[in-house]
């Protein structure tokens, strides 16, 4: 039986095949079409990104504008609701829909920059750890294991409480606590590739180390890193909302999903929509990213595509 050739996306092959950008786009597009859940995830995710970027244009109200006469209006589909505020208003009469749209900015900013910083630092440290090896590797992995064996949530709460409420601090907390995940996956991949023999072969024909990293190791890493980054970003969005819920994320004046939950919780038994509806936004985003992540994992992991004999 013929071996299935490396993989579908071209992200994992040892020598990335010379495919034009257009061809690759068409190829990835076809993969999306084959598994519709990935497509659904992508569309949902793009909707969130769209609302974050164009918030001022699509939000019906200023998210900070209070209107005490319209306070605690229930959503439009309930008896007392009105289409002036499709998702209702909160305790101060602020429009929930507008706040959700603006809130996506906080979540996506935290998720995107958190993962970006964590991923680039983790990638660098992981490459060093896996490539240099020896003592450096031991020290780095010691640190990684230490951080991974801490109760994550407790420490995030602890640090956030100490450092105070600002967007930058929240991003940095998530970025730094998430580095170990990326270090571990990068290092694992470097070790795997180093042992697989073709790096040795490249070295033996006189390839430069830097060339090996850029030509052989990095292309192999892109797939797994994108997958992990998707899941980590969704996790960060959850944790940010959780911190906000505990009153430890961005300042209370900023419309964020977590802050909305925190406010709504106080009115839960009487005006439940103030808390429950913003939660739906979190679920929506989480669902989008997990569908996308699952799809990426299936496409990228060649083991799942292997033909069983």
């Amino acid at each position, binding site marked *: 039986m013929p071996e299935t050739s490396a993989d579908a996306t071209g992200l994992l092959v040892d020598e990335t095949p010379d495919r034009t950008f257009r061809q690759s786009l068409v190829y990835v597009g076809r993969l999306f079409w084959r598994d519709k859940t990935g497509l659904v995830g992508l569309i949902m995710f793009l909707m969130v990104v769209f609302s974050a970027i164009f918030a001022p244009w699509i939000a019906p109200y200023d998210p900070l504008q209070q209107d005490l006469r319209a306070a605690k209006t229930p959503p439009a589909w309930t008896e007392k609701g009105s289409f002036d505020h499709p998702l209702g208003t909160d305790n101060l009469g602020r429009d929930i829909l507008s706040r959700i749209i603006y809130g996506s900015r906080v979540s996506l900013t935290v998720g995107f920059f958190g993962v970006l910083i964590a991923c680039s630092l983790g990638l660098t440290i992981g490459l060093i750890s896996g490539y240099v090896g020896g003592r450096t590797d031991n020290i780095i992995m010691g640190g990684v294991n230490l951080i991974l064996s801490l109760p994550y949530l*407790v420490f995030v709460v602890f640090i956030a409480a100490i450092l105070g409420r600002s967007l930058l601090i929240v991003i940095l907390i998530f970025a730094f606590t998430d580095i170990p995940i990326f270090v571990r996956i990068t290092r694992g991949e470097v070790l795997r590739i180093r042992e697989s023999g073709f790096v040795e072969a490249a070295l033996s024909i006189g390839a430069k180390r830097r060339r090996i990293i850029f030509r052989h190791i990095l292309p192999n890493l892109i797939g797994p890193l994108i997958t992990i980054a998707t899941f980590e970003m969704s996790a960060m969005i959850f944790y940010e909302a959780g911190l906000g819920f505990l009153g430890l994320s961005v300042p209370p004046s900023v419309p964020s999903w977590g802050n909305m939950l925190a406010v709504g919780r106080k009115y839960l038994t009487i005006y439940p929509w103030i808390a429950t509806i913003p939660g739906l936004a979190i679920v929506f985003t989480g669902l989008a990213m997990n569908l996308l992540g699952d799809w990426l994992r299936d496409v990228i992991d060649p083991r799942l595509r292997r033909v069983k004999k």
Partner: protein
Amino acid sequence: MQRYILSRLIQSLLILLGVLLIVFFMLQLTGDPVSLMVSRNASPEQVQRVREEMGFNRPMMVQFADFMTGAVVGDFGMSLRHRQPAMKLILERLPATVELATVALLMAMVIGIPLGLLGGSNPGGFWDTLCRLAGLIGQTIPNFWLALILIVFFSVGLGWFPTFGRETCTVFGIHLPTRSVILPAFALCLFTTGQLVRFTRAAVLEIKNEDYVRTAYSKGIGDRQIYTRHILRNAAIPLISIIGVQFGYLLSGSIYIETIFSWPGIGNLLAEAIGNRDFALVQAIAFFASLTVVILNLLTDIAYGLADPRIRYGD
């Protein structure tokens, strides 16, 4: 096996040392820990008094040595607010948290493992679809939101469960959980359930294709015995690690749940302490939580070693 346990033990001790360092220096992150603990409009005299009272005026190394020796004998300092040893406050709250996390873990295991087994045994079938759904739900619904929804529906709407608080009934001096634990535990177990489903299903799918399962079939063993005796038993070994990790996660996750349900556990204590700027207590809780996780990991590793004959009878 002894060597295995010993190496795990040494590893755990090293990690604990690292934890102590992290927990201690975290408070120094802002430069002046005292400023965290007093209210913003405190007079300089008040600040100075707290500083001396808490010993923050001493050299850093002395403080650290003091912290370390305290930690070894189980003294994590005094709570500023409660004027009581932090350890005492933690231990008072411990049973409630353990009850919540244990019930949640049991729920997750009872739902997750059989579901994963059913799904993995028939990929693409009804149970498998349910598995994928459970895995996805576990990862996409945050427990703090689910908790709110559960309260709205089952406590406020249907009135089946209390909205907050913990009630126990005492039988022969043992405190047993009552229905008050059901909603918080269910909200807490969701993510873990999803993880267990995913993991069990994946393990079954992988083990099904192992050579030794084929051997068992070649002996004429029926499907039921194949699953219970060969597949489940092999899947159980890595499951032990997952369950250990998840229990640690449940303990952490109780911060949200305990806050929402006013459950008198450690998570609630932590949220209170942060609200009161009682950072000595926060520090103690962080260390205690890490200690619990490290011990849990150690126990998990030992259980893993006992369950796997390749380690139990290894050198």
